[in-house]
């Protein structure tokens, strides 16, 4: 679909929305993914893997019909997630791992399932309950060692849909400690400069600025009034709460 047609569809949807009385259960708002150890979509959202496509902006949206065994829920726009030839960084773990989910909607849940190589290694049955704000599961890897690709599936109770997250792990032989310490192998992590730039330097994102730091932006000088690590979207002219114009 062309961008123009997509936009038209969105506009049409918004235009008619006020007149729609019937409301669905809202599967569109039920979202989630594994944030740590970082799933493939978390690696993308974090910028540790580049050229991931639109998943960067919505790692919580890998939603598709239940019963699939892929990393992208069968969605073509997220196909990169299922591409094992990409250099996905691994997280080093022991034989028991604590998985943390980030949920943007706490939809009633039937089960959480964990698979390695097509075998189910763990299942947590929520019996249709609404999950807590933070969901964590401890999963034993059954003595597996070396590099593994784990698939986690969040099965929603009252829709035919599920959410899919793949996590690349490097399993040590060290046995039962639930360590989630990470030493990623290949990373393209965005660099964060940890020292304040010299007075009069040009503003840059991903830089730690302390109170009193001075920068120029667009030919204008600013002084930092609130310590922060700079971000795209937090440029000095637009953030008077972070930067004072000089």
């Amino acid at each position, binding site marked *: 679909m062309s961008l123009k047609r997509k936009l038209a569809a*969105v*506009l049409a*949807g*918004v235009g008619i*929305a*006020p007149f*729609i*009385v019937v*409301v*669905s259960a*809202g599967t*569109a*708002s039920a979202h*989630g993914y594994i*944030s*740590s*150890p*970082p799933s493939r979509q*978390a690696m993308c*959202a*974090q*910028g540790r893997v580049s050229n991931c496509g639109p998943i*960067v*902006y*919505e*790692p*919580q949206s890998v939603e598709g019909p239940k019963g699939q065994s892929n990393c992208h829920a069968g969605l073509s726009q997220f196909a990169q997630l299922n591409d094992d030839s990409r250099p996905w960084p691994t997280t080093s773990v022991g034989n028991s791992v604590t998985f*943390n*989910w*980030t*949920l*943007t*909607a*706490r939809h009633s849940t039937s089960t959480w399932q964990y698979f390695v190589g097509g075998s189910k290694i763990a299942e947590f049955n929520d019996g249709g309950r609404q999950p*807590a*704000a*933070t969901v*964590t599961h401890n999963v034993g890897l059954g003595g597996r060692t070396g590099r593994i690709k784990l698939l986690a599936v969040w099965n929603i109770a009252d829709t035919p849909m599920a959410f899919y997250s793949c996590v690349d792990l490097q399993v040590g032989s060290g046995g039962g400690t639930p360590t989630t310490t*990470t030493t990623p192998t290949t990373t393209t*992590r*965005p660099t964060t400069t940890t020292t304040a730039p010299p007075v009069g330097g040009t503003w840059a994102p991903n830089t730690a600025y302390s109170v009193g730091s001075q920068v120029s*932006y*667009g030919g*204008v000088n600013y002084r930092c009034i*609130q*310590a*922060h*690590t700079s*971000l*795209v*979207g*937090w*440029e000095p*002219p*637009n*953030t*008077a*709460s*972070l930067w004072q*114009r000089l």
Partner: protein
Amino acid sequence: MRRLAALVAGLLVLAGCGTPPAATTPPPASTVVESNEFNETDVMFLQMSVPHHRTGLEIVRLAEDRAVRAEVKTLAAAIEVTQLSEVDSMTKWLADWGKPESAGDNPQLHAGHGGDHSTSPEAVAELAATGSGEFEKAFLNLLIAHQHNAVAMAKLEKESGVNPQAKDLAARIFDSRTAQIAQMLGYLD
């Protein structure tokens, strides 16, 4: 008169106005000329964002006196001041347009706009009650989820809004929350 204009512009900056003042000073970054033209998406975006921002403020304030790493505390404090400033801008625009600050609690109102993107008071209370050993992880996961929803709302406004200052704010929310999420996912590793 010119001095007055400069003073007003200065005050706007000091007051934390989200967008640069329009005509008086040549803004170096975005050149948004504010307008009172708006559509239903603009109103819905602002009415959803004001309470969403305020919930975000409740979340980040929890990090102030809890055991979290210094960089997490710094991010929380910076999110607090920027979101406060954004709320000021948004409530001002809604007032200018004669619209209430919130559309109310009825989730049906949001059905055509991608669903109700709120973080429930229970979720915030649960976080507040989390023990110190687990707090930072729970804090990051809840705030990441909260900001994902901000990105989703901003995307709708970017695509379907018409008001220049609201669209400009949406673009900055889209970018800054995406970058905040990237930072926070890094802290979770």
